[in-house]
């Protein structure tokens, strides 16, 4: 195992291997130069399974599943929910973290 730095609650980067890893189980997900979401399992959740609509009406207490879904990203090994992104139906998944890996290595491998 190389030197790891924690980037989010559930994501580490192994600086020597240049890999995204699960912070909880250590699973190596994908290259740190790629979108970590491409190293996860993905599920588009109906928001009505998180918030009870309570009433049967076009406007209720849950997000409209015809408009948005909660797109969930899971660690393939331990099943922790690494991230959840509310997206319009069919909207491309964002590449939300694109770190300058070279600068990161320079900062944490050289100076420490």
């Amino acid at each position, binding site marked *: 195992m190389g030197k790891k730095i924690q980037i989010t609650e559930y994501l580490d980067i192994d600086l020597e291997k240049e890999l995204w890893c699960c912070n909880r189980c250590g699973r190596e997900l994908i290259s740190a130069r790629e979108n970590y979401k491409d190293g*996860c399992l*993905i*599920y588009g959740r109906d928001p009505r399974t998180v*918030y009870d609509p309570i009433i049967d009406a076009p406007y209720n207490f*849950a997000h409209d599943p015809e*408009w948005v879904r909660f797109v969930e990203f899971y660690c393939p090994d331990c099943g*922790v929910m690494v*991230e959840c992104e509310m997206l319009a139906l069919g909207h491309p998944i964002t590449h939300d973290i694109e770190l300058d890996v070279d600068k990161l290595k320079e900062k944490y491998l050289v100076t420490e």
Partner: protein
Amino acid sequence: MRPHWKELLDWIKPEKFTAKDIERMEGLQPGEYEIHNEKLNNFLLEAREVFIRMGISSMLRSGDLAVGIYTADGDIVNSSTGTIIHTMTTLLPIKFVVKNWLDEPTVGIKEGDIFYSNEALYGGVHNPDQMAFMPVFNDGELIAWVAAVTHEPETGGTEAGGMVLTAKSRHYEGMKLSPIKIGENYQVRADMIEMMENFISRAPRMQTIDVKARCAACDRLRLRIQQLAQEKGNEFMRGLFCTTIRVAEEGAKKVISKWHDGTFRGVLFHDSVAGQDHLQRIYCTVRKEGEQVTFDFKGTSPENDAGSSHGFPHTLATATGMYLFPYPFHSLPFNAGSFTPFEWIVPEGCLWNPSPEAAVSNSGYMTWTVFGVLFPIFAKIIFTNDRKTVTGTTAGCGGGNIIAGINQYGVPVADIMAYPLNSAGQGARSDMDGTDSFGFAGIAAGSRGPDAEDVENEYPLLHLFQKHIRDGGGHGKYRGGTGVQSAYIVHHVPWLAYNCITAESKLVMSQGVFGGYPPSPFPGIDVRNTDIWEKMANAENDIPSDTVEMLDRKALKGDYVIQSEARPTKVLMNGDIFLASALGGGGYGDVLERDPLMVIKDLQKDLISHWAAKNVYHIAYDPDTLVLDLDKTAELRQNEREERKMRGLKPEDFKKEWAKLKPPEEVLDLYGSWPDAEKVRDVIRI
């Protein structure tokens, strides 16, 4: 003469220090900055209190305001901890006046002058935000400016309340004053007050009293600064102001230098324009390199001619401060120096950079789209080095519920209901739940919901209930704070006009972070032709005390209208009821990591439902005694983790199926091209 949007963006950043400025800063003795900066803070707090005590509109009295001190050039030096965005936007009309009126013989800038402005094109947010500002002279030399600003909930537009939901251009939106002199020799001119009352004829009393409150706050601040200048001299004051800006600039750079270099992206959706269902997209890319940060909003939906949900680029830029100042910059002075490291890219033609003729009176609400998208983006930038500052989105949007009519004393009134506005839930943090009903997302501290009795004393309303929303906060390892549900009965008067400028009934603008869920939406609900007075007169014990209870049991007779929270103006009759809501904050982390005891505590406080405890948090407990079964809970949660692995798809498989989906065509007409939100048609404004 009207400033170009690029000029306004440039003005946000402070003027470069001159050699004389540096000499003045070096002239300060050790400790003098610390002592006298604290004096400036005290001056601001005093002026803020004067402001609150003298005004009458509900946002003013709620502390939803700002008072600020500026250099002679107009750069913000420091501000009260009121509405953060005003801290920055107020400097722009001042810079306009310095640039254009200082040497203009028909205007000029003299001791005792009082200026006023409420025009977004000259630097404000939208025309409800009215500001008074005064030059501060000492020994005949202009050494500073002071300003007082707050939102006035009436502008004389085509709908009451100032934020004209259905405005198709600026010409629907009522009074818009470019920076104008309204007073001389420390006196407000009567003809200017008459002009404003003529514009604001729905609530002239409120307008006049609040104008005077702004001027009084300015004048108290002016007096204190003059007194200090008399004691310490003008060179000292200028050195003090420059040092405050330099401290903020150096502090901002120090904070930023700890963040990771890279490119970070976020997307946020908005569900309503002009009270109708429309999907729009806000797309933000943040590039951070060294001490420089660029916000790029390319990919944001185009401007439209349907409503007033737009804003100008300087408003967007200052709205980024609504995230930065309370969170990563929480220890820095609120001034222009903090903004030195930032650049903003706002493409012309997007809803954040529309034509100057566009309607923008709802841009205050639209600022939620800016700082709302920043919470999850910055969570990923700052987590490694500033974990405790990470939160789910605190953009639980307060309700923008407006009433207008003749009150129980025969006085014309128009106002926004400041309790639901100022009681949204805070985003969950990395180590604790967000605060329930914490306040207004755009205020660092000091906003408050007015007392229900005060509201009933001023306006023809009776509260049926006002309480936390169950399941309102975003679920997560740490739960987003929940918001508020309020129900108002029209009382004392035969009718009352009503509208609501906030939406989020099909989706919310807040996101969770790191697996936390967004908070829940809330529908717009009116109940007409009720039997509430009969029930109260008969002391019946089934009067509802909660929205769900009201809808479930329908104990009240009446016509229930369930719609989007965003509602153009309508008239309610005596005994009719309208509901308002302040939404919750985003959650933090995986729900399966939430301490089961915290779930039980939420049940005890009625902050979550048994449905959520079972279906979202997967805990096992006795529903009657609330005694936990920890072993069974561990088993349920492990089962859910295994379920996730079963239902989760490989990215290539998911994307293939996902790309086949699309929201309904009828709500995409203002979105732009799908999915990139490029402009697809011209907007013609006349």
